[in-house]
């Protein structure tokens, strides 16, 4: 197929997904995955090298921007709770899903590792949206939960980057480059923003692409994953980006208009409906394993940190959600041949369901108690609230 015809089909699907997302008020990522699945199963769309490249860059920028959304102040202030809850929230489902798929479902060890990583994630965005609705994002409890979610995702990308890496010289070079570059990234970026910002040629955008591509290249050489350095780079850039909202907006525009749609459409394209229906039992079990492992790990900790019974259940369920990083891990497994298309279809479906089911349960049965809601409603009222008379 002609390259422009391919582009027309893919961008057409991305455009359609955007319209549906705006109309229905559902996340564009989720709609793109769904549209991609329809395209893959019924239109026969296929990925080409240039689509793979754009999708790859999309996932790198997505991860970079996700890492940059962490609140360093909260992380510094409440590092103990955030670190402990976030780490356990990663580790328990990772081990449980890996053990189940390896010992019970009979998957190979690399496939089981991918399953563990994909199902260990927590969707920061889903948690954040739910918290804004309840106003919890302004409370200390909400900030701890959000920061813990970043730690969980850090665990996910670290596992993805480390578990499949080749332990050779390239890995040493990659880690050395990370150790040298990351501390200098914020001052370098600050200097660039001070001297070259707001130019049509966007030198600062090119600078970050250079850093991400360079670190990504080293990561790939070590058979690691390019999203690991991207997430870490985003993490260290969080403070600078908080001061550069216009730049983040431009970078986000570039990513979401042209790059991430290719990533999410591609992620959906590989979902086989036949495999999905055939694996419906395993999908249900894996979803239960993920949620049960999160409950077993996070719930006792929230109790330990005196969250209160309802808040504990609410926090645990929110931390059971997943979306973007789960699909990144699954797609990594598929493209590197660690999992089959059937296993991929099962994992992505579980990841999507884990974005929906725990949220619904949390909202239906464990919404914060009256006192918390009262505070929440006050804080979620617009700042332009005033009395007119």
């Amino acid at each position, binding site marked *: 197929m002609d390259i422009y015809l391919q582009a027309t089909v893919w961008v057409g699907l991305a455009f359609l997904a955007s319209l549906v*997302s705006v109309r229905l*008020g*559902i*996340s*564009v*990522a*989720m709609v793109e995955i769904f549209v991609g699945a329809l395209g893959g199963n019924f239109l026969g769309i296929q990925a080409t090298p240039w689509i793979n490249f754009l999708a790859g860059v999309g996932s790198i920028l*997505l991860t970079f*921007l*996700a890492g940059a*959304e962490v609140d360093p102040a909260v992380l510094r202030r409440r590092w103990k709770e955030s670190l402990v809850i976030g780490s356990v929230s990663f580790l328990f489902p990772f081990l449980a899903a890996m053990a189940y798929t390896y010992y019970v479902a009979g998957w190979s060890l690399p496939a089981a590792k991918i399953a563990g990583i994909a199902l260990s994630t927590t*969707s*920061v*965005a*889903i948690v*954040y*949206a739910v918290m*804004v*609705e*309840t106003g919890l994002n302004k409370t200390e409890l909400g900030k701890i939960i959000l920061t813990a979610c970043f730690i969980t995702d850090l665990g996910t990308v670290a596992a993805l980057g480390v578990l499949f890496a080749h332990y050779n010289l390239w890995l040493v070079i990659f880690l050395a480059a990370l150790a040298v570059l990351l501390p200098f990234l914020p001052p370098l970026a600050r200097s660039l923003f001070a001297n070259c910002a707001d130019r049509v040629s966007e030198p600062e955008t090119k600078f970050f692409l250079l850093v991400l591509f360079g670190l990504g290249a080293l990561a790939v050489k070590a058979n690691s994953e390019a999203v690991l350095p991207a997430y870490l780079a985003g993490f260290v850039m969080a403070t600078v980006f908080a001061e550069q909202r216009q730049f*983040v907006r431009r970078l*986000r525009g570039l990513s*979401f208009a042209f790059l991430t749609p290719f990533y*999410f459409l591609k992620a959906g394209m590989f979902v086989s409906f036949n495999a999905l229906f055939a694996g419906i039992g395993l999908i249900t079990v894996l979803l239960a394993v993920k949620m049960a492992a999160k409950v077993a790990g996070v719930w006792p900790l929230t109790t330990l940190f005196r969250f209160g019974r309802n808040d504990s259940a609410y926090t645990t369920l929110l931390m059971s*959600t997943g*979306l*973007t990083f789960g699909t990144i891990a699954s797609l990594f497994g598929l493209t590197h041949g660690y999992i089959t298309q059937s296993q991929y279809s099962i994992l992505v479906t579980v990841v999507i369901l884990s*974005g*929906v089911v725990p*949220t619904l349960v949390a909202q239906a049965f464990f919404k914060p108690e009256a006192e918390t*809601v*009262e505070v929440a*409603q006050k804080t*979620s*009222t*617009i700042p*332009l*609230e*005033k*009395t*007119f*008379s």
Partner: protein
Amino acid sequence: MFKKLMVAFDGSPPSFAALRTALDLAQKYSATVASVSVVHLPDYAGTLDEVDENIQRARQYYEKALQQAAFLAAEKGVELTPHMLFGHTGERLVEFASHEGTDLIVTGARGLGSLKRYLLGSVSNYLVNHAPCPVLVIRGKAPAEK
């Protein structure tokens, strides 16, 4: 009789009709009016930016609409307090009314056809069925405008 009125306000012409009616009633009963605007955030968001963008967009939109609302309230000499909440419109409006002890909810009707009402959901219909207090649905222009 009615001391605390609440208007479901989304800045649309039907919601302005509801606001005018509420202000009219508030003037008669010496009541206060809370205008409540609910912003729907994307379900199962993919990124934080997606959520923040909706909040920003809503803030810009409502700033303008609420200025007009404030002007109308000032004309009538009625106390109007605007609120912006996030979530599913019907649910949040009912929660607010319950929490604040609202005596009457005034809402506009978009006049959706049956298919659109099925697909998009009718806020006024939800309020009538779930609100903890009487609900006044204004179809067309506000009585005061006629």
